[in-house]
């Protein structure tokens, strides 16, 4: 009874999938589970998984909200590049007070979000194209800021965003967790979550019920822009350089993938940030596992696609029922024979 209760919990299947992928490492590389405490911080592959998940997690938090309103934000990868470029150039230009730099980066993200939000909610342009525009042009803007070069910088304080340690964990993990908690509280302890979901479920009816649908759509793109800017700073600080050409390239797809692995529908509606985080972890664990396993890189994509399909199928009620029937049928046949 208790067990069935457990298996029916909505966190169960995604967690199961994550565990299975983690356990695959027992076969390939047992070092994966090695953890030690070194120089005041936890050290090991599991920590790396968390650390490398942080930017995607931040993107996915914003993306989850955008998707919940029935939109999509393809521009986050480009926003990463822009915020990184702005921060790096400021650091090199002498205006290197940390709060100022961080503020500038966030402002860039907010500006990007405002553009997206404006296009979607005021001009009524379809989200996928509206944000595609910034996805293309945004990377151009970042390259323009950097003149196509990688801008490196030396700044202990800013670098700490990417490589620092707090509470024995890498700083990016702390930042991602903090933002996660903040947004989760904002969504679940105020009425915002309800408004976002209602907007995604039925915008017309929500409008009739007195919600300011436009403002809600507008603000989720803003939040998404801010999250992306933060992710951009982490990525930039991590390599102590702003790579406008490659920072965050195709990361939007990972973020969307995470949100969907977390059970959200791209048509809008219900969303769950905890489940989205599990989705992020599944994706990153998969990447790290592939690197650790020593499989030839040309098989990376094949493995990734198969894992995704299996995880999705696991979550599909129809598939589970088919498996159960197969299983049940097997039992019945055995019974017949006896």
């Amino acid at each position, binding site marked *: 009874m208790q067990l069935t209760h457990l298996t029916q919990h909505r966190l169960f299947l995604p967690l199961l999938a994550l565990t299975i992928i983690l356990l695959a490492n027992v076969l390939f590389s047992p070092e994966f589970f090695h953890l030690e405490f070194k120089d005041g911080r936890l050290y090991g592959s599991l920590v*790396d998984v968390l650390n490398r998940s942080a930017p995607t997690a931040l993107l996915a938090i914003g993306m989850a909200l955008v998707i919940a309103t029935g939109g999509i934000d393809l521009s986050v990868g480009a926003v990463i590049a822009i915020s990184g470029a702005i921060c790096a150039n400021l650091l090199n230009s002498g205006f290197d007070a940390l709060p100022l730099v961080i503020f500038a980066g966030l402002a860039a993200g907010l500006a990007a979000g405002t553009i997206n939000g404006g296009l979607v909610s005021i001009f009524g342009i379809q989200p996928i194209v509206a944000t595609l525009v910034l996805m293309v042009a945004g990377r151009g803007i970042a390259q323009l800021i950097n003149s196509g070069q990688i801008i490196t910088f030396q700044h202990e304080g800013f670098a700490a965003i990417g490589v620092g340690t707090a509470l024995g964990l890498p700083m990016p993990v702390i930042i991602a967790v903090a933002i996660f908690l903040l947004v989760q509280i904002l969504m679940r302890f105020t009425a915002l979550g309800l408004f976002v979901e209602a907007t995604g479920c039925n915008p017309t009816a929500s409008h009739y019920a007195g919600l300011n649908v436009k403002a809600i759509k507008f603000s989720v793109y803003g939040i998404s822009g801010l999250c992306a800017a933060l992710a951009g700073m982490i990525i930039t600080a991590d*390599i102590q*350089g702003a*790579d406008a*050409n*490659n920072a965050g390239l195709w990361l939007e797809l990972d973020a969307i993938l995470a949100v969907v692995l977390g059970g959200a529908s791209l048509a809008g509606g219900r969303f769950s940030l905890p489940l989205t985080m599990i989705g992020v972890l599944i994706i990153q664990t998969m990447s790290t596992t592939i*690197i*650790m396993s*020593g499989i030839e890189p040309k098989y990376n994509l094949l493995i990734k696609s198969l894992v995704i399909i299996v995880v999705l199928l696991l979550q599909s009620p129809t598939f589970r029922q088919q498996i159960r029937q197969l299983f049940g049928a097997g039992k019945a046949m055995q019974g017949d024979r006896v």
Partner: protein
Amino acid sequence: GESSQQAPASATEKNLVVGFSQVGSESSWRTSFSESVKAEAAKRGIELKFSDAQQKQENQIKAIRSFIAQGVDAIIVAPVVETGWKPVLTEAKRAGIPVVIVDRNMALEDDSLYLTRVASDFVEEGRKAARWLMEATEGKCDIVELQGTVGATAAIDRMAGFNEVIAEHENARIIRTQTGEFTRSKGKEVMEAFLKAEQSGKSICAVWAHNDEMAIGAALAIKEAGLDPGDDILIVSVDAVPDIFKAMADGDTNATVELSPHMGGPAFDAIEAHRQGKTDIPKLITIQGDVFTQATAAEEYAKRKQ
């Protein structure tokens, strides 16, 4: 119909018009390359039509065809990939426009399709990197490899050249290889994982990175793991972008093989020679890439930083 025939006529009266189809702007090396060609054209008073293909061959082909439609005097192509150029170069030939291939090679059987190639040799770069490493370690080394993007010509050829030399040394082997996608971030991420998989890096003798960016990323990862890049683990890479000289000067990486971005000069030379009616233009102009090490890194950095 009228206007399209006017274009070449008016162009000859004025200065030379050259179309340049560039791969994209995926790395800072590539950007330096574009800038160098533009600067060279400006110096010579050549009107350069620049087209960025955003890493897509189809865009390059479109650009070349539109250069033909515009009736430019010559076309320079830095191809994204070796194959697939025959149809469009045939068209250029029909239109009587000379084509110069720069950087990567093109697989063409018929060498009348182009005027000349100003080439860098990726396989040779791989060999040079390997030779340097084999010398530094006396042929005994467990190497981890950071590959470029899977399927990219530069990655495939550098790997082939490197492995060719390694094969001659029985105590040298590649113990791990994974793609770092030519980027700093991914290079760092992969190196982090390698370090953990190889007893905190104790069993790694050297990193062989297909470009400088990944090498810099790897150096960061090694430092964060508490080891000393350049000493505990050697790092060798290709490209010779300014940043790697800084890293070498700081003792973080060990060697790089230069891939010169200054290929515009020889290309324009060939075009101008062709216009003057010269016929003895060589079909291959090789750009030599040297190996740079920590020894000269500081002064090279000062020179290249601008």
